[in-house]
């Protein structure tokens, strides 16, 4: 467009635009008539399991071809689509509308539940064009209402020669649903013809525990990434940051979408040199002994509904306080680094943190873990020590000092849960010892934690929380790849996993996608939705978490180790030993003598032993969970 404007000049450009618009309107008027006459000749409706992602031409994406033998696994002998679900969770599958030529169609999906408790959610799958391999992959899920009418090729996805449109179907089975069989149908209609797939949903008696055995965190930084994806209208009151209700509603919507998918959401509110964005901290006034909190209003508008759970009132999982949150505390907040090591620093830190504890207590915000977490690295030149991934042991002195200050600031019997979190890699083994009783939430490099098999048990026995971190797999990986993170956490016996960034889908995820290595949700703005929308990987992760919670609940009947062994075997034919690396010789060296490449070498055992998960890897685990349920019955 810019080029046209330059070639023709502004006035001529506008004339040409008007002409184009008139032609377009003419086309829009007659285009549907044309395609309706095409009818649904040769149309088909196919049901696919969740792990086989379709492409827009009727095939399966190359990454999931390893599961192609299970393409018809949902169909029973009567050509019914057989689905099985636990109570208190979701059963998912995909529908693919296929037509050899341009066609209009209507898709209806229904499950007949006389109690109206079971709900069906329909999503249209967006096919992203991935620049790296020039292929299409479905991921973003656009909420659709059944009956859903559209045409092939799907106009907004703009795929030349598209002959297949995929839909994700989530069937929500509440915890109080009656076990038994429900029937329904998926019906494709167009041009006077229709195709019907009968659906059969078996609601099983076991209930998925409401609490997960593994906490899956979706991390992010600040609010500007979110705002950018929803347009400038979200940025209000210029010069005062994000103060508008719409912005907080959007932030809460991000929390909600992850919560609905059995995950949690973190936003870090400060930068590497201590800059704190206004919505993440109360307003401070004064200096030295007079420093105090002057205004909680913005902080409370942001966090109040998250801490009291009211932000989740409309959720199917029910209102619940967010379990974890970053505090704005960093070396420059609340105490000024100008006074580091002096009485003024201690006074500012202790007084303000004490005020925070009192405020949280008075508000009754006692179900959230408030994290004191230092994210800065010295390579970003803000501070002279690494808060994140300490490599140089001398830096631990700063942690010890903050531990002392925290103890001084917080009443020992406070019902408010402050936790001291450290993200650790190089030096973790030493830190586990030196910072015992100071740090109690460990977020570990998965690669290096794999050297220390006894560590999770040791840490958890003393009351610490242990997570490990990594990043979401690209859509170009197999569909089951995302399940490897929660599975590893459960097999290792740690409490959780952190996706380091999950809300940044790149500049143009729709037509020039970077693969989604930093995104599990997308902006709904393109579709008129003022909230984030989920992706397929997030759905698969949720279903994996459901199964893990359920399988773990069988530990009263079977030893946990035996359950883990069977899950690992079903997943990728691995043993529990395959998930750990032997402690390497380099672990005995001071961490500042380690080389990054040597760490890679030390992880070769797991890399060799663990087969990359094939597309149906989690399907096999789900089948194992079903067998456990049958045994229990």
């Amino acid at each position, binding site marked *: 467009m810019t080029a046209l404007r330059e070639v023709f000049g502004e006035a001529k450009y506008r004339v040409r635009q008007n002409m184009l618009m008139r032609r377009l309107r003419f086309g829009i008027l007659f285009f549907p008539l044309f395609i309706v006459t095409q009818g649904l000749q040769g149309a088909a409706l196919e049901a696919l399991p969740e792990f086989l992602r379709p492409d827009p031409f009727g095939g399966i994406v190359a990454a999931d071809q390893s599961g192609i033998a299970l393409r018809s696994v949902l169909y029973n002998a009567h050509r019914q689509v057989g689905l099985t679900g636990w109570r208190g969770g979701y059963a998912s599958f995909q529908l693919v509308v296929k037509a050899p030529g341009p066609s209009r169609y209507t898709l209806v999906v229904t499950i007949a539940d006389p109690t109206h408790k079971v709900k069906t959610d329909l999503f249209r799958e967006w096919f992203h064009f991935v620049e790296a391999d020039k292929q299409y992959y479905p991921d973003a899920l656009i909420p659709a209402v059944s009956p859903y009418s559209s045409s092939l090729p799907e106009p907004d996805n703009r795929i030349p020669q598209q002959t297949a449109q995929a839909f994700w179907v989530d069937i929500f089975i509440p915890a109080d649903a009656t076990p038994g069989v429900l029937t329904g149908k998926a019906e494709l209609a167009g041009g006077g013809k229709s195709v019907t797939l009968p659906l059969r949903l078996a609601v099983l008696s076991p209930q998925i525990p409401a609490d997960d055995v593994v906490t899956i965190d979706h991390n992010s*930084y*600040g*609010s*500007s*990434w979110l*705002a950018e994806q929803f347009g400038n209208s979200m940025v209000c009151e210029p*010069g*005062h*940051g*994000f103060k508008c209700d719409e912005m907080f509603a959007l932030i809460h919507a991000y929390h909600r979408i992850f919560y609905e998918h059995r995950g949690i959401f973190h936003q*870090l*509110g*400060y*930068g*590497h*040199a*201590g*800059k*704190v*964005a*206004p919505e*993440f901290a109360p307003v401070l006034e004064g200096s030295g002994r007079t420093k105090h909190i002057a205004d909680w209003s913005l902080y409370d508008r942001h966090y109040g509904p998250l801490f009291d759970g009211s932000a989740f009132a409309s959720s199917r999982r029910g209102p619940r306080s967010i379990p974890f949150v970053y505090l704005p505390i960093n070396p*420059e907040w609340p105490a*000024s*680094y*100008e006074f*580091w*090591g002096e009485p003024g620093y201690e006074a500012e830190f202790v007084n303000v943190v004490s005020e925070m504890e009192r405020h949280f207590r008075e508000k009754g915000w006692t179900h959230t873990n408030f994290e004191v977490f230092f994210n800065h*690295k*010295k*390579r*970003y*030149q*803000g*501070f*002279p*020590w690494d808060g994140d991934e300490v*490599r*140089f042991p*001398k830096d631990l002195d700063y942690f010890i000092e903050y531990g002392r200050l925290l103890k001084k600031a917080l009443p020992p019997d406070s019902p408010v849960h402050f936790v001291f979190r450290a993200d650790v890699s190089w030096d973790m083994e030493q830190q586990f010892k030196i910072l015992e009783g100071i740090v109690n939430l460990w977020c570990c490099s998965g690669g290096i934690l794999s050297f220390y098999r006894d560590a999770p048990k040791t840490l958890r026995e003393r009351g610490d929380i242990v997570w490990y971190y990594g990043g979401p797999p690209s859509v170009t990986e197999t569909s089951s790849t995302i399940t490897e993170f929660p599975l590893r956490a459960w097999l290792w016996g740690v409490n959780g996993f952190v996706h380091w960034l999950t809300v940044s889908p790149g500049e143009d995820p729709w037509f020039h996608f970077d693969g989604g290595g930093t995104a599990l949700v997308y902006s709904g703005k393109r579709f008129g939705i003022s909230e984030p929308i989920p992706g397929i990987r997030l759905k698969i992760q949720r279903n994996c978490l459901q199964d893990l919670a359920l399988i773990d609940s069988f530990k009263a009947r079977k030893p946990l180790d035996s359950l883990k062994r069977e899950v690992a075997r079903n997943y990728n034919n691995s043993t529990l030993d395959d998930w750990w690396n032997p402690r390497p010789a380099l672990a005995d060296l001071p961490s500042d003598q380690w*080389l*990054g*490449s040597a760490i*890679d070498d030390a992880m070769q055992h797991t890399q060799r032993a663990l087969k990359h998960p094939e597309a149906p890897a989690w399907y096999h685990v789900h089948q194992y969970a079903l067998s456990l349920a049958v045994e229990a019955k």
Partner: protein
Amino acid sequence: MKFVYLFFLCFALAAAGNAQVNAEASAGMQNELDAVARVGSVMVDGDLCRRIVTPRAKHYMFATDPRDPWLAGDNYDVDDASFNAVKKTLIRLSHLASFPADVNLWMPIEGHPGKIQIVVRNKNEMSQFWTWGALYQDMFPPMETVLKTGQRVTVTNKPGWISVLAPVYNSLGDVVGLIEAVSRVKTDAHENVK
């Protein structure tokens, strides 16, 4: 039609007025930052500044390993006593301005002419020159001028940004680095917090 004309007239007048206010604000800020930089040249200890980045960090700064893309960053280390002493001075200097400002320390890299690195940043996370995450950068001509001549240089290349660069001297009287006293006409509370 008259209404439209009046509307645009009012808009143009408001914009012109705003531009004048911005220009005045900018000139005032420039004067203040120049004063901060002038004082900074006297107060910042160049010998201390030279001791901040450790020999190890300097050794790895330009090292590469195809198997380890983070080699330089993972080996970046500073002498915290020197860092803290200089940073505290820089923070106090920033208090001389009547608006949010940062005073950053930039140092040339021995053995690598044509390169310069930011060594200390501060809490508003402002710099007109730093590329986020860069351990070192190509020398900027105005910085080279400061290092060669010992003169203060004002830079307003990026719209809305004002930086005053001033020399940092060691005990021999040599210019060994420079400070960047920096602010923005309109601050962005969220930039870098992501």
